[in-house]
């Protein structure tokens, strides 16, 4: 892997442990708590931070409000918000800003109390008056978020013969990883999942239909939660406590409904090619794939779009449990923390993709892939079956 640009690395991570704060902790408090723990993890402090990245999920004008709340005066402020993929964009921008000499220590944070707020993220029906032209044409239909993704699954089945049993492989592998992660098990207990255990294909396809063809066990949870990531320049690393996890490549892209367009191909096809190209590595070299699992179909589509298999072959490719962490010869392990399906989904999961990928490359995962050297983290923000943003980050260890 010589010749790669290694200008910035993840040096600190923290995932907020609780998924149900019972209304007693605010999103800002989750962000600050996570930031402090991530800085400690890195062996750094607030005063070292000179760049802040924020999606504004805890309040408007977050560039200055979050800086004041943390008590820092950053030289770089980036408030990109592209939904759940925001944190992949933040990592890419932090890497760019550090490489340009604008910053040395970048802080990314996330906090949400979606569960405590009883936010009906998935089945809300998108009420109210349309704020945008597209909303004003679509709100009358009662399309839920689940139905939006379900329409991708339906078309994928129609074009390629993909089955619910194949999609269920994603839920089964993710739950298997969740059962090995005590925080994920606690999350499922706190959120009152029934019958918390490893699942089978039959369990998934036998669970209640939420929006055809997606079943309950193909849909992510709605939790509280948050986390933080610290990214630093090479000259900071000698002061850091943990080995660096290098950002080797990044890609950004957007997709939206187009007349005659292909709903089964997401913006990941563009962002993935960019990221892998920049990193100079191939999908088949990945040990770990952290892919935004809002729903089973999100992962299947993105696995294809990132180039793990040709378009339309994802269903057959995932069969037989190949996404499990203990089958490295079969390709990357998927969402080894238990994913949004079974561990943590407060609305914008992108930061956890970076955190678990970093754990894997440090050897700290509860479903550790032996000798993991390379990981891809791919965030999808917005709605896969309509307008969305894709952010791909390739990570590697020394």
């Amino acid at each position, binding site marked *: 892997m010589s010749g790669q640009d290694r200008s910035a690395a993840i040096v600190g991570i923290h995932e907020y442990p609780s998924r149900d704060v019972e209304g007693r902790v605010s999103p800002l408090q989750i962000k600050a708590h996570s930031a402090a723990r991530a800085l400690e993890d890195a062996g750094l402090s607030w005063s070292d931070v000179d760049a802040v990245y924020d999606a504004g999920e805890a309040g408007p004008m977050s560039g200055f409000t979050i800086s004041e709340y943390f008590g820092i005066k950053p030289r770089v402020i980036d408030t990109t918000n592209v939904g759940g993929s925001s944190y992949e964009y933040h990592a890419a921008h932090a890497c760019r800003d550090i490489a340009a000499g604008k910053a040395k220590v970048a802080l990314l944070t996330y906090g949400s109390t979606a569960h405590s707020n009883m936010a*009906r993220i998935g*089945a*809300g*029906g*998108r*009420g*109210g*008056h*349309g704020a*945008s*032209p*597209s909303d*004003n*044409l*679509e*709100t*009358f*239909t*009662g*399309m*839920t978020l*689940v*139905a*939006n993704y*379900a*329409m*991708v699954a*339906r*078309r994928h089945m*129609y074009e390629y013969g993909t089955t619910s049993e194949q999609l269920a492989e994603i839920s089964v592998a993710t739950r298997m990883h969740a059962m090995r992660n005590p925080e994920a098990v606690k999350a499922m207990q706190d959120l009152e999942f029934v019958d918390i255990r490893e699942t089978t294909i039959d369990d998934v396809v036998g669970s*209640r*239909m*939420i*929006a*055809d*063809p*997606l079943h309950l066990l193909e849909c992510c949870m709605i939790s509280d939660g948050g986390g933080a990531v610290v990214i630093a320049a090479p000259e900071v690393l000698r002061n850091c406590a943990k080995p660096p996890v290098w950002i080797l490549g990044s890609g950004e892209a957007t997709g939206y*409904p*187009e*007349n*005659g*367009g292909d*709903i089964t191909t997401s913006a990941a096809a563009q962002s993935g090619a960019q990221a892998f190209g920049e990193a100079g590595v191939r999908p088949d070299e990945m040990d770990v794939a952290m892919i935004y699992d809002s729903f089973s179909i999100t992962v299947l589509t993105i696995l294809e779009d990132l180039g793990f298999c040709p378009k339309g072959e994802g269903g057959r490719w995932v069969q037989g449990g190949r996404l499990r962490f203990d089958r490295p010869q079969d390709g990357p392990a998927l969402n080894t923390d238990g994913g949004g399906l079974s561990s943590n989904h407060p609305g914008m999961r992108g930061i956890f993709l970076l955190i678990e990928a970093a754990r894997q490359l440090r050897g700290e995962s509860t479903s550790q892939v032996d000798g993991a050297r390379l990981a891809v983290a791919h965030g999808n923000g917005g709605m896969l*079956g309509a307008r969305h943003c894709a952010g791909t980050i390739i990570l590697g260890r020394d």
Partner: protein
Amino acid sequence: MADATRPLPSLNELDTRPFWEATKNRELRYQKCNDCGTVVWHPRAHCTGCTGGELSWHTASGKGTIYTFSVVRQSYHPFFRTQVPYAVAWIDLDEGPRLLSNIVGVEDPTRDLACGQRVEVQWEEHEEVNIPLFKPAS
């Protein structure tokens, strides 16, 4: 408590207002560029195919094909929770626009719909606008 009703579009949204105003006459309108021929959907004030083109409004036949669909079984919305199960679909109009709507007029949406199925518009009347829903083509 009054029965919950379908959320209706705003007539104050500038890009889509001409579309919704035409629905009063049961016209399903879309835009096309006079210069480059690009069919523009959703409606807006500029052509997405070229930088100088002027858009004109056209009336679609109301016939199209289901590109993909889902049947919503669970909704927390006060109106839509009373409608489950109902079908939401991306529909390719014969003239090109891909629009989102509901498919109605079938006995069981979980069994009676398919990608590629031919559909046609069926208007649902409201005071200020009519809502273009779709049913299987006759």
